[in-house]
């Protein structure tokens, strides 16, 4: 059953009953709805799994999508966060959850509320500074409240046609277009650094026993240097944010195939998690997939 059939398949029988408000509606014939019209909107899917080998889930995710249309409408807004916690005594799950809440609080308060300000004159910081501070605030919270705990933190703030990415650790943000699939974040892992230095090959890195050792993470010290960059949103393409439970297990080619092959980002996300578990599910798995329309 395709996504559209699932969505609209039962609709005629349901809609034939009288509407509670007394407004008459005509049932939609699923065949008349074309996918292209639907895909004029930004679509998002999220999925998470503890995996096969782990007893606890230390990953956390957050997704908020605002769409609007009309003359002089509010620009598109999206906030997507993935955090992969680490540390004993359950401090990993506390660190990741705390970080996600801290970032969501900070970034929904400032840029989101300002979107609706008709005067638009509020004196706010540049978007990159807001994102950087949001991650640094999360870091302060974790340092003071969860000693010994830490987390990766990848935050994507979409405003209009630009997305600003704040990143620490080895979760990843991918951009998938018709032409290519590329990682737009840098893994702050020791092994990746050794690959960059030419001391290890990609193949050696993939099986290196210390591939989980990070040189930068939230919760390590008072000062946190955050990677912050802004990219145009991929038109008719995807943004994928995921923890290493996905990218370390499912090859990029397979991720690409699943994203483009599914009817909806939600179906693709579920499929990505299934693929990671089918490959052994050695770690917690989190995926957020956002589709951006062509125009």
């Amino acid at each position: 059953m395709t996504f559209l059939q699932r969505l609209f398949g039962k609709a005629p029988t349901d809609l034939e009953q009288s509407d509670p408000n007394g407004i008459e509606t005509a049932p939609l014939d699923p065949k008349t709805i074309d996918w292209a019209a639907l895909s004029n909107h930004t679509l998002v899917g999220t999925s998470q799994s503890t995996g096969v080998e782990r007893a606890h889930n230390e990953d956390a995710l957050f997704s908020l999508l605002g769409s609007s249309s009309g003359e002089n409408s509010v620009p598109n807004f999206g906030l997507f966060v993935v955090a992969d916690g680490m540390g004993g005594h359950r401090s990993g799950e506390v660190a990741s959850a705390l970080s996600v809440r801290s970032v969501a609080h900070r970034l929904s308060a400032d840029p989101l509320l300002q979107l609706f300000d008709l005067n638009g004159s509020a004196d706010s910081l540049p978007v990159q500074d807001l994102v950087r501070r949001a991650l640094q605030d999360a870091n302060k919270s974790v340092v003071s409240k969860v000693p010994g705990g830490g987390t990766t933190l990848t935050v994507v703030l979409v405003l209009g046609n630009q997305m600003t990415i704040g990143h620490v650790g080895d979760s990843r943000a991918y951009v998938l277009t018709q032409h290519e699939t590329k990682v737009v974040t840098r893994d702050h892992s020791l092994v990746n650094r050794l690959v960059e230095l030419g001391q290890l090959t990609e193949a050696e890195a993939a099986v290196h026993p210390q591939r989980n050792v990070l040189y930068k993470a939230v919760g390590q010290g008072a000062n946190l240097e955050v990677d912050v960059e802004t990219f145009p949103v991929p038109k008719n393409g995807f943004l994928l944010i995921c923890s290493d439970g996905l990218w370390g297990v499912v090859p990029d080619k397979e991720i690409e195939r699943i994203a483009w092959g599914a009817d909806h980002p939600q179906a693709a996300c579920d499929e990505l998690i299934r693929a990671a578990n089918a490959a052994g599910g050695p770690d917690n798995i989190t995926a957020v997939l956002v589709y951006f329309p062509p125009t």
Partner: protein
Amino acid sequence: MKRITKALGDITTETSQLGQLEPGVTLQDRYLVLALHGAGGMSSVYRARDLHFPNVTKTVAVKEMINMATDPSMHEMIIRNFEREADLLATLSHPAIPRIYDYFTHESSSYLVMEFIDGKDLEAVLQESDDFLPEDQVVKWAIELCDVLDYLHHHKPQPVIFRDVKPSNIMVDGYDSIRLIDFGIARIFQPGQKGTMIGTDGYAPPEQYRGEASPPGDMYALGATLHHLLTRRDPRAEPPFSFSERPIRDINENVSPELEATINAALSYDPADRFPTAEAMRTSLMALAQETGILVSPRTAASAGQPRNEIQEVWSFECEDEVRGSPLVVDGVVYVGCYDNNIYALDAKTGDFIWKFATEGGIASTPASDGELVFVASEDARMYALSADKGTLAWTYYAGGPIRSSPVVSEGHIFVGADDARLHVVNMFNGSAAWKQEVAGPIRSTPLIVDDRVYFGCESSDFYCYDFRGELKWRFGKARRGITSTPILIEGMLYFGSMDWSLYALEAEAGWQIWKFRMGRPTISSPVFSEGRIYTGCADGRIYAIDSKGGREIWHFQTEHQVTGSPTIFEDSLFCGSVDGSMYCLDMRSGRKRWQFQTGGPLTGTPTVSDNRIYFGSNDHRVYALLT
């Protein structure tokens, strides 16, 4: 999920109860807290008075370890770490290591009482200085650091590896001597399920990431610290072990090659390639200090005398007044406006005069052309359309004030801003006004036209986006001074400079400010883009290369005076003039100078490249053509 929320709530309450010690509190009936001196992640340092010496003021430093761990084993571990620091310090005696006086635990906190060092740490020294630290100063500190590290490495019964050499752990006291502080680095991270987290540093050697600690590791961290002090590039902001990608002398050419070589040796990836002992590095530093004489004469006279021209001109043409604007080159002809009120047409190959046309005011802008007609705007408040071949007048357009913005041709219209606070849109063929838009101040920025939208800055400090019907799409009002710089649009992002000392990056659809890069003075230079970088000039005399996605400086090049013109990129070269009178050619990727061409007056315009030649005007009244 519920359980986690509750746990967090508990911790929050506990944290707020802890807080920091207030001045006036006395600990152990002995140490009167005077002020908070500094605070780190898990500890605070207070300046305190030792009341056992009632007749004199004996100032001590009290370091408080705040233990917020709720888990009993974690709590215990933090206390043990702190005790270890106390025990270690108690056995050390060296002038560069603070003495320890006391150690005690009170309620949930532990305290170390130490010698109070009246001074600043090197991170603060670096932050407070505007320029590179002098080499002789850094070498003196380095020698002292080698001395104390050598003492630690030869400590009995067991060598001490400091493991955390970095600017913020090195104090400079009132006698300009260095002191090592913070021996509490042995931070142990709980080996979690995911893996082990290790020091953030940037200063830490590669082998420390494998848990190895040895004297060469401290030498690496010392090398990293010296690299930071001499280049001002914070290694924490860079990938680990990437010092070789930032050679010291590329960034700070005043550093001697000998010192660079010594630091590079300390920074070798393989510990076996480094100095085996601190004493060996100290010897090397002493030798170079004597050889280069830096301990005697700190400065080298590098920029004395008139720079010689390293490149020959192809031709130059003399006008009757200053050439402040920028030339346009079309079909083998150079069109350039001049403060003698004329626009000149010159043969691009030979510099021969073809025609000139007299306006009634100086010309500060760049002409535009559609091939048939040449459009030129003048401070006489008029815009002229001239035939490209003979310079005969086709039409004249009257604005309400001087025009310093440059005309732009698009869709059969000319767009130009004027000092009458209007954007003028003029029919290209007959010179009639299509529409005008009044804004908050004079427009000297040249409009940018992309996809039926017009973007321009204003002297009022506003930046506007209008559509082709003259309807306002958005306005950006967060700059604090005028915007004279001409915007560029790359992948949906707008970049422009402001007189408020900043370069702005805005999302073009709605005018969201994405980042802001602060420079040393106002800027009216217009940015250019190439290979993911934005290049711009500034009145602080610098030409900057800035990462377009992150708003970080990649390099800057210092000229001798303001840079008011804009850079031009050709292949991998960047050309930019300065008010110091020189045209500079820099390697676009590194910012290193390839050549410099000195003219007889300030350069305020933007060079134009065509057919492997570069054309520009100077305030010495001449128009120059050079080979690129």
